[in-house]
């Protein structure tokens, strides 16, 4: 038995296909990204080694830091919205009729492609014929804003569909975690005279702390690498007002054909995601024991 299940040849046959793919198409490329960041390169012609020039340029590039700030702003909004999603899940996981149907409805936007969502919201935000401004006009507001053309509004106008897209996902995760709490615990607290608010704050939320940590990581990492909807809706514009790190990387590489600089941005994005994941795990390590499974 022991011998059969540790046959090296068979193990290799089973693991190597998947391992080769992930090494060749995920791990080697991310190392190459760091390496290409040291090059002057238009993507097709020959490369020229220029050392840390791209990385130095990155540090001095105000547009890059603007995109970093926008990405972090999106992360902040996403994490704050988790509070709302948790609230919805807490109510939903109480004995509500139709909870099952409701959580399924919440999830619908997440199943749709970002392109379809982006096109739909482009129409919603349309300055004259969009449903939003027509609604505002019907309330008697005359100077309805041009949501996506106004540099001070565009970023927030884009955050809304992103939060809309993922709301159901987080509500669903919280709901599943809350449903996993044994009812005897809640029952015991109720007998001890705890009110619903106390039960939520002192029992339910601590018990799902592990899941909350995971959602915070997902929301932060997801926000930092967010791309599709912003790229389709505004391409980062007007004038960089909605540029995020991933869209800035894409624009520099594939639209301005500066692949060396794009790679430097891509490498920075990778470091940002890994460091933040590690940091969040580290900061919330003490919560580990309370995770209920």
């Amino acid at each position, binding site marked *: 038995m022991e011998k059969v299940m540790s046959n090296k040849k068979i193990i290799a046959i089973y693991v190597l296909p*998947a391992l080769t*793919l992930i090494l060749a198409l995920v791990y080697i490329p991310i190392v190459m990204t760091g390496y290409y960041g040291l090059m002057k390169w238009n993507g097709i012609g020959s490369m020229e080694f220029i050392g840390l020039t791209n990385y130095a340029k990155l540090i001095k590039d105000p547009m890059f830091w603007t995109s970093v700030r926008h990405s972090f702003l999106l992360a902040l909004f996403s994490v704050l919205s988790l509070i709302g999603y948790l609230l919805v899940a807490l109510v939903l996981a109480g004995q509500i009729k139709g909870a099952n149907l409701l*959580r399924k409805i919440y999830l619908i936007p997440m199943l749709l492609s970002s392109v379809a969502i982006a096109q739909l919201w482009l129409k919603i935000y349309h300055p004259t014929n969009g449903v939003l401004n027509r609604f505002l006009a019907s309330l008697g507001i005359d100077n309805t804003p041009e949501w996506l053309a106004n540099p001070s509004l565009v970023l927030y106008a884009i955050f809304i569909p992103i939060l809309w897209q993922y709301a159901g996902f987080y509500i669903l995760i919280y709901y599943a975690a809350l449903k996993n709490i044994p009812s005897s615990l809640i029952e015991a607290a109720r007998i001890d005279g705890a009110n619903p608010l106390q039960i939520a704050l002192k029992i339910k939320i601590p018990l799902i702390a592990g899941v909350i940590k995971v959602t915070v990581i997902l929301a932060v990492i997801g926000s930092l690498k967010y791309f599709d909807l912003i790229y389709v809706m505004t391409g980062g514009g007007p004038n960089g007002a909605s540029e995020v790190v991933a869209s800035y990387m894409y624009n520099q590489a594939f639209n301005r054909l500066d692949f060396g600089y794009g790679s430097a941005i891509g490498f920075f994005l990778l470091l940002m995601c890994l460091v933040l994941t590690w940091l969040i795990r580290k900061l919330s390590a003490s919560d580990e024991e309370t995770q209920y499974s």
Partner: protein
Amino acid sequence: MLVFVAVVQVLPLVWLFFFSLKNNQEVFHLPPFALPEDPKWENYVKVWTEGNIGVYFFNSVWITVVSVVLTVFLASLATFAITRMKWKLKKPVLGLFMVGLMIPVHSALIPLFSLFLKINLINHPLSIILTYTAFNLPLTIMILLGFYYTIPRELEEAAIMDGCSVHGLFFRIILPITTPAMATAAIVNMIFNWNEFVFVNTFISSDEYKTLTVGIQNFVGQYTTDWGAIGATLVISILPILIAYLILSDRIVEGITAGSVKG
């Protein structure tokens, strides 16, 4: 509050459906949520017959199916070796797959583009099938992992005693009993691949191989001012997912939960 959230989640889609049945005159002058007096179903006929929607649609279907089957099969093989077999490097190898969950696709995009350019896979469906598979392996393995750990050891001991080979054990016993987990993983994969945008947009340039997401993006560009046609295109692109959701909603909900909470 709960119903309000539900309304917010679907209202934009209802509006989309309504304007897909209108002409511009009606879109701009009727109240947003009024149905037109005679629905313009011809918007749908027009976009389906005029452009390449049919081709994009077919590409999305077959590319999604091939990638999902490949991903789930390779992930099953790897998960089997990691959870059931004895070898020294299994912990670091599993770690390698799990760290893959945190890696943003954009950080690998430029080298992948240059790699596919070199080996002539740019504008070839294989480039997206392989990247979908590689990038979905971590999540798929994570979903399968929990299920594999619950399979009792006695099962494989009995099989081996009876003279079953490791391959026989995997193909005839393990694969059949992990069907539910594979289904869950397949559904999550399916949703990701169906909606994927960046890889197709970067690697594929000819209409012949574009999938629905990138296809509609270009297609909508042709109808910048015809709202009914744009609406119809978008409805066509989201309808398959909505129908699949109506039929498989429990599985999809379960798949999405399983794919996230276990992290």
